[in-house]
Structures are given as C-alpha cells and as structure tokens.
C-alpha cells in the first residue's frame, strides 16, 4: 500500500480571480443601505458639510450692502487683514491658546488625584463621585450665572470666604480686570469638567490588571513607585486622549465667556469664538466674509495643532512602551 498524495487529487492552480468568478456575487442591498444611511447622510450634509462649505466660500467673499446685497470675490484679503492688522484677533487667539494650554495642565492632574481618592475607597466615595460629576450636567449658561454670583464683589462667595479668613484685602472684582478675569473663567471650566475627567480616569484605573501591581508589590515596590512607574504609565493613553479633547474644547470656548464677560473687560477674556460672533452679528454689516475667514483660519490652526499634539504625545508613548 502506497502512502502518498493521491494522484487523483487535482493540483490547485485556480487563481483568486477564478474563485471570485466561480462564486456567484452576492447583490448588495442598495435599497436597505440607502434607507439606513440616507437620513444620517442627509443631516450630515445639511448641517455639517454644507455649512462648512458655505463658510469656506464666504471667507473669500464680502457682502456689499451698498451694491444691493451682492457677494464680491476678494480672494485672501480677509485673511491678510486678520493676520496683519487685527489686534483684537491676536488678543483673542492668545486668550484661547492660553486657556487651551493651561486647562489640560490643571484639569488632568486634578482629575487623576480625584480618581485616586475615589479608587482608594475613602468614606462617602459614592457621594463625592456624584458631587464632582454634577457640574458637568449643568449647561454653560447655568454654570455662568452661578459663578457670576460666586465672583460678585459685594456678596460673592469668593470674597466672602476671603473676608471671613482675614484676607479681605485680596477681595476684588474678579471679572473686572483682565489679569484676573481669564484665570477666573479657567477655574470655572476646571470645576465643570473635573468630574468628567475623573470618571474616565477612574474607569481606566479599574482596567489596570491587578497582577502588575501585585507583582510590583512582591518585588518590593512601594505605593509611590507603583503609582509613578506602573499606574501612571498605564493611564497615559487615557490622559493623552483627555488632554487632546480638553485642548480642542478650550480652543473653541464660547458659551461661558458669552454669559459671564462677553469677552471683556478690554478683550481680557475675548476668545476667537466670541470674536467671530461679534464680528458676524454685532458689527452692523451683515457681512459674514470676515468672520468666516477667522473661523476658517482658526479651524486650520486647531486641526493642525491637534494633529501635531496627537502625534507628539503618541510618539512619546511609543518610545516609552
């Protein structure tokens, strides 16, 4: 009895193409695809793509009210003016950038600390988790009004506390000076988003395999070593994502400023978003060209910085792991 490959078995010489041709091609259910995707695509195009295209179109045009509301092509004239002669834009850009850089630096470590506190099973942990998360459930206008009260010179909580502890000389109108107004607003967003960042961070901490920590403990690593050499590095991807989200969110900051200071005093809290709205709706021209150009420019800047920041942080991450 000969043991070997049966001669009757044909050599497999068919190509992938032959196989594809042999198998009857399943018809795509275009009707169902259209039915399910259609509404979403319609709304996406109507409310995202179309406005974006119109904004790009407007940014190179100007509305001539004196010529019967006609649009005139002006090329990059708006961009040139923004970059070369618009002091308020630069002030707004600086404020937005300051906010976007400072906020993650403050927010993420704070969230980490809060998450560790809750992870450490402190008494009333559930209560604290709810309390810290609650501000996120409030809208910007509500938060804005609450903090307007907190910062009120006469009876605001900030000054009441200072006066109560004998630091009355530091009591001041927090939103009346450009030097204190922006930090005061940054503090509000930190208060508002600490809970969200904390919850995400807490979930990430829970996802860390306990074996790593146990192994480290067995190897003699103390709590601080375990924290800084195991926990924090493992939380890094979460922190990077939160930092980038925080950065993008603060670069677009509008509602809180609008409610609390409308960009004042003296442009001290002006952000690019509030400036766009002012130019679009408060400059009595109805011309959306210039504000659209600011919006386009800022979109490009945010996009570029976000991509750059992501790559930079991810690269560092790759090097460490």
């Amino acid at each position, binding site marked *: 009895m000969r043991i070997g490959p049966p001669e009757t078995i044909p050599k497999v010489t068919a190509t992938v193409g032959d196989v594809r041709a042999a198998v009857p091609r399943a018809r795509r259910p275009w009707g169902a695809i259209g039915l399910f995707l259609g509404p979403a695509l319609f709304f996406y195009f109507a409310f995202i793509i179309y406005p974006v295209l119109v904004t790009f179109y407007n940014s190179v045009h100007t509305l001539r*009210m004196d010529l*019967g*509301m006609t649009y005139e092509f002006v090329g990059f004239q708006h961009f040139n003016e923004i970059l070369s*002669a618009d002091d*308020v834009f630069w002030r707004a850009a600086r404020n937005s950038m300051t906010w976007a850089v400072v906020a993650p630096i403050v927010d993420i470590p704070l969230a980490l600390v809060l998450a560790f506190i809750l992870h450490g099973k402190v008494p009333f942990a559930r209560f604290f988790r709810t309390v810290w998360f609650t501000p996120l459930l409030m809208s910007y206008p509500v938060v804005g009004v609450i903090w*307007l009260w907190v*910062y*009120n*010179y*006469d009876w*605001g909580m900030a000054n009441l506390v200072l006066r109560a502890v004998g630091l009355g000389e530091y009591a*001041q*109108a927090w*939103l*009346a*000076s*450009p030097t204190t107004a922006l930090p005061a607003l940054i503090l509000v967003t930190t208060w508002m988003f600490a809970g969200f960042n904390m919850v995400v961070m807490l979930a990430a901490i829970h996802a860390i395999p306990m074996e790593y920590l146990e192994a480290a403990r067995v190897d003699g690593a103390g709590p601080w070593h375990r924290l800084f050499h195991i926990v924090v590095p493992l939380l890094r991807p979460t922190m990077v994502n939160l930092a980038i989200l925080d950065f993008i969110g603060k670069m677009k900051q509008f509602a809180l400023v609008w409610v609390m*200071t*409308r960009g*004042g*005093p*003296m*442009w001290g809290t002006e952000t690019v978003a509030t400036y766009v709205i*002012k130019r679009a*709706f*408060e*400059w*009595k*021209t*109805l011309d959306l060209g210039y504000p659209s150009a600011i919006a386009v420019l800022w979109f490009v800047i945010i996009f570029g910085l976000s991509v750059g920041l992501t790559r930079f942080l991810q690269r560092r991450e790759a090097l460490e792991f």
Partner: protein
Amino acid sequence: MQAKKSGVLLLACVLTVVSWGFAHAADLTWWSHWATQDTKKVVLNEAKRRFEAKHPGNTVTITYYEKKNMWPILQAAFTAGSGFPDVFYYDIDVPEFIQTGWLADMTEAIRWENIEPYGKAFWTRPGPAGKMGTWAIPVEASSDEIYFNKKMFKQLGITVPASYAFSQDEFKGVVSKCAKAGYAAFATGAADREWTALYIPTALLLSKLGVDDLKKLARGELSWKDPRVVETMKYYRELIDLGAYAKTLTSMTLADAHRYFHTEQKACMFPVGSWYTGRAFVPPDKGGQPKDFELGLLNYPLIKDGKGHGQKFLSVAGSLAVAAKSPNLKLALEVANAFADVEVGNMWMAQTGIQTGIKTDPARIDSPIKWYFEEFGKVNTASKWVELTTQDVKALMKPGLWEVWVATVNQGLPNRLIGVDDALAKLEDARQKGK
C-alpha cells in the same frame, strides 16, 4: 322653484364668503422686547386688541424676547427667508436691517398725522438701493437722564441748583461726597449692556462739544486728541478716581443697577434712559422702586467753556417694524397702524411715564405718576433737546470704533484699567483705521 333656486344661490354665496373669511384669517406673529416691563405690555396688548377687534377672525400672538438675543435670531431668519415674524420690535441697534430690505416701507400704511413729526423723520431714511422710506413706527422715545435719590442728597447736604445742572466743580463735589459717605456716585451695571457706563462720559462730551461736534467725533470726523475731548475725559477720570462707580460695576446687570439705586439705595445717582420708569414704576415686589423712594432728576453737568450747555439727549427708542416679506403684509401693517392713535399715545404715557413718538393729548392723560410728569417738566423747562442718545452713538460710529469705545470707556476707564491717554490713543487709532 324660483324661490328654491334663490335660496341655494344665497347659501352658496354665504358659504363662499364664510370660506373666504376662514381662508384669509391669519394668525400674525409679533416678536417683542420688553419681556419684563408690564406697563409696556399693557399698551402692546391694547394695540393687539384694537387690531383684532377691527379685523375679526385675525389674531396676533406676541412672543417676548430679550432684544439682545432677538437680533441674531431675526437676522438668521431673514437671511434664510423664513421663520421671521410678521411684526417685530425694532430700534437703532440694528440699522442694517433697513438697507437689506427686510423692513416694509410704512410710508403709505400708517396714520402719520397721529405720529410726532420728529418720530416719523427719525425713521425716514434711505433703504435698499437708496430708496427713501419710513421703516418703523416710533412707539417709544427716550431722553438720557440723571436720576438722583433726594433723601440721600439731603442727608449728604447736597443742594441741587435751580437749573438742576451742577457746574463742573460742583459735580465733582457731589461725586466726592457720595463716595466719602460710602455710596457709589452712579448706580451703573455693565454686565449685560455695552453702553451703561457711557452715559456720563457722553453727557460730559455733549456739554463740552455741543451736539454737532459730538456727532463729528462719533462719525470719526473729529480727532480723539482734540484738546476739548482730552480735557473732558481727564475730568471724567477724576470722577472715577473719586469713586464714582461701584466695584460691582462689571458683575452688575442693568436690572441689578435699578435695585442698587432705589431698593438697596447704595448709589446717589442713576444715569440712564428715561425708560427708567418702565422698570421702576411697577410694584416693588416686581422690581419697582419702593413706595417711599424720593426720585429726583438732574440736568447734565456744565463743563467749563462748553458749547453744549443746556443740550440734552432725546431720541426715538423702541419702535415697531413689519417684515417686508410677511405673507400677511397688509394685516401686519395694520397692527403697526393700531399704534397711530392719540389714545394709544396717552395710554403709553399714563402707563409707562416714558416719552413716545405717538402724539398725545396731555390734558387727557390720567396717570398715577402725574407727579413724575410735573417733575420731569420742571427739570426740562429749558432743555434744548438734541436728536441723539448715548445708545444712538452706536449708529453713528463705525463698528470698529464702537468696539474700542465700549472696551475703553465702558469697561477700561470705569474699572481704572486704563489711563485717559491710552484710551484716547486707542480710540484715535480705531478712528484712523476707519473700520
């Protein structure tokens, strides 16, 4: 048989008329400011009632907004070509609405004989493509006033001159006395308005320059480094340094400022439009002034060597416009026309105590605030009214200049964030940019 035929014909006619009536019954939409001002609402509701009585089957629904929020919504609706109301509150905040052709021309639609000529003249201006028209009906007019707390003045030993206008030095003394007694001189809240801290500097500039040069300054035809302007603004800064404004200026809203003045009584004076009464002359539990509050009025301080002594700001304020593309244009114009009636004018005066562009018959005005009209008349006996107000300056200034005017003079100076020279340099820079 003949009778039967006639009956059927009659029935057909009746049905046709009735169905035509139903087909043409319209529910008109009206967006209005003055959400919190009940006395004004009474008059608006009266106009609505008169319209509905005159046009049975047609109704009007009034929706109240804060005007600051209403403008962008209106602008978006007009730009989109749908979603705008038939009738809406209008004022000089948004003069561009006229040029765009969004407002209906009222030239032929209103009983103008019942409107004060200055009111009609105010809204008669070039519209789209330069076509002249009359674009709104002037319901409210207002002057810029300086109200004061009589009891507080007495307590501080301040005597008001017979002309009701302090000299430059006297006014400084008044501010100083108020500040030293722990009061703010002016109840002003700049948290939700961009012009509240502009009343005093604008009045001082009027007193110094006179209205013609003030208008030139606003239009950018006069330098902010003009020595008269510099001198006046330096004087204004002296008032600020004496403690003219409360430290709560930036976090105080206009509504707060009213309470600060008449309820909490923490300020001697309240520079504000004569529409003060709209908020103050309501029951105290609705934010009105206390029953025993003694309200007085002043004329503007007389700046040394001023060309504008005795001049006082008065202009058309809250008005009513109609959307040019309203599907119910004729009816909408009739809603506006309902205001053009001396009785409505009388009612406005009696209810609100604020001037109106509608003609009135003072002899027939029966009002619980007659004392106020008398006081107002006494103070303004010699006033030379000029057609401008602190708010209207916005319509004269180019947007870039207005932005800097607000930032430096509504925010920077009263909070002592900027010196006069810096402020004027920024204003001059904006003037030269011409944006």
